[in-house]
């Protein structure tokens, strides 16, 4: 009735077949060939489109398995399906000619065939609403947790301040190297490029007013007040907040933090304080380097586009820039450092047992740190301009 070619790696092509013939007392269905998952689609289609010869007395059918060379669970499921299909036509089907193994497989498959499949839960509007409310709740909770953590770290810092010999100097120096020294090349490069881009764009736009040299004033003030510190803070948030979360989170995952607590070691004192202290020291230095590189980039562009010599450029900067601009920029650095350090360490400590959780928290540390640094910078700018700096 149907031939199903089965591709075999040996090259020969055994065929799964289902033949229906009439027999005394009803029908005989002869299954032969490999009834396996590889012939599933074809056999299934054949069973679905099976046309049962209409006979008045066809009430019983024999399903003969003696020709089956190979039977797996999919094949057994199909045989059961065939039996049910015949049953809906009012034909009582029985199996014959199967080996013991085949029959036991058939019965195992039959007992395990699920009549009612569990439906996949559908997503409606209400869960979406619930998720939104939950997300807002989490955001508020985050703020509370971060504030509480700031308090905890401050107390730990105060405790350490009274016993300075307990401060982890080795760890501190290690983190100064990793968050500070090793970030110098990338921050220098980024600031150089952005300083150059700002100057070049300034020159292009100010050209319409014939005020190209003012581009130097612009880059000087912009670099010192905003760009240097903001770029540096974002880079450090990306580099170090993620590193802190990954380091502390790995320790949390392996229960090292719990082990520390049982040994009477305060994780805040040993893990969090040295990291935040290192950032507080390095971020202003990095911001200063960033400022200088921005100005260098600006000078380069001024030289290329306006033919302004280095000496003239520096003189022009002297006129445009005051110490106040620099201070406004660099004073934000230690505060940004505290934000980045707190977020990184808190996310690390929030990691739960699994590797997925670590990944989630590293991502969220970077996102939150950058987000908070920018928010903080905007607030600071508003505050300073309102107070006349």
């Amino acid at each position, binding site marked *: 009735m149907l031939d199903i070619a089965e591709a075999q*790696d040996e090259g020969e092509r055994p065929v799964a077949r289902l033949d229906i013939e009439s027999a005394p007392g009803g029908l005989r269905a002869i299954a032969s060939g490999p009834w*396996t*998952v*590889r012939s*599933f*689609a074809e056999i*299934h289609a054949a069973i679905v489109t099976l046309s049962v010869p209409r006979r008045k007395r066809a009430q019983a059918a024999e399903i003969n398995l003696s020709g*089956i*060379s*190979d*039977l*797996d*669970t*999919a094949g057994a*499921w199909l045989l059961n399906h065939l039996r049910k299909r015949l049953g809906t036509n009012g034909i009582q089907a029985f199996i014959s000619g199967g*080996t013991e*193994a*085949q029959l*036991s*497989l058939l019965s*195992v*498959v039959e007992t*395990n*065939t*699920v009549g*009612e*499949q*569990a*439906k*996949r*839960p559908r997503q409606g509007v209400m869960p979406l609403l619930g998720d939104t409310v939950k997300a807002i709740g989490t955001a508020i909770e985050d703020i509370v947790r971060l504030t509480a953590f700031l308090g905890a770290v401050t107390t730990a810092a105060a405790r350490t301040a009274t016993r300075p010999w307990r401060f982890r100097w080795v760890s501190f120096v290690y983190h100064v190297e990793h968050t500070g020294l090793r970030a110098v090349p990338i921050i220098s490069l980024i600031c150089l490029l952005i300083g150059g881009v700002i100057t070049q764009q300034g020159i292009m736009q100010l050209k319409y007013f014939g005020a190209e040299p003012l581009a130097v004033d612009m880059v000087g003030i912009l670099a010192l007040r905003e760009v240097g510190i903001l770029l540096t803070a974002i880079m450090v948030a990306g580099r170090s907040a993620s590193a802190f979360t990954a380091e502390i989170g790995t320790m949390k995952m392996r229960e090292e933090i719990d082990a520390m607590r049982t040994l009477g070691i305060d994780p805040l004192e040993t893990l969090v304080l040295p990291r935040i202290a290192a950032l507080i020291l390095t971020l202003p230095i990095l911001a200063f380097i960033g400022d200088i590189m921005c100005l260098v980039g600006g000078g380069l562009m001024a030289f290329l586009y306006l033919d302004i010599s280095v000496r003239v450029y520096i003189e022009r900067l002297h006129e445009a820039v005051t110490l106040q601009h620099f201070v406004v920029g660099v004073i934000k650095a230690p505060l940004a450092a505290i934000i980045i350090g707190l977020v990184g360490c808190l996310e690390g400590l929030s990691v739960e047992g*699994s590797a*997925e959780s670590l990944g989630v928290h590293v991502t969220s540390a970077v996102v939150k740190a950058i987000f908070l640094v920018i928010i903080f910078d905007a607030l600071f700018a508003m505050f300073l301009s309102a107070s006349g700096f």
Partner: protein
Amino acid sequence: MNGRQRDKEIIRIRGLSKRFRTQVIFEDLDLDVLRGEVLGVAGASGTGKSVLLRCITGLVPTDRGRVEIFGREMAALSWRDRLAIESRWGVLFQDGALFSSLTVLQNIQVPMREQLKLPKSAMDELAHLKLAMVGLPPDAAHKFPSELSGGMRKRAGLARALALDPEIVFLDEPTSGLDPIGAAAFDRLIRSLQETLGLTVYMVTHDLDSIFTICDRVAVLADHRCVRTGSPAELVSHPGHPWVADYFCGERARAAYR
């Protein structure tokens, strides 16, 4: 079983050598796996039980030696033939290795999707069948792996390994991390599936209870090779190697063997 050809050795390893940099893992290792048996591979930690499994399944390249599966040498096959052979075995990794972004049902359907063209309804039916055969409740079908317990993840992983009705199943420490009752249930499950589906089971384990209850033969890895093979009872009566003696005749083995 099931009328499949009955050559005795389904996996044949000859002279397998493998080293990582300077660390020798295997030196001239020979091992046979017979069709239709449950072979337990035991050995101390670091003797390369899992590495051997990875060498056989081709996840780790070997340095020297032949690995023949179904009578074909794996290294000599084109990737197309290799793929055809690879679909004739299933692997259960230690923690199930389920894809975390897919539900259990979708996980079981991955091999069907990749290897065969089946209608969606048929895949659902077959996946539910496999799910029931490994003893998972129907409502586990739409859960994600992270929502399952360790034992359920292993069962789901086994269902995925069985998705295409393979001839060989490789199990990497199937009972590790399960409580004794769960481990015993998993052992029984493996044995009953092996009997009904006519599987050959290659099982990395150091669970003495599994070895004594379901393994037909045990292969012991030590000194960079397979030092002993035989039924658990033979190894108890004739250890023939100090580690085997320690392992099979120690306190815990005696309790498990009883």
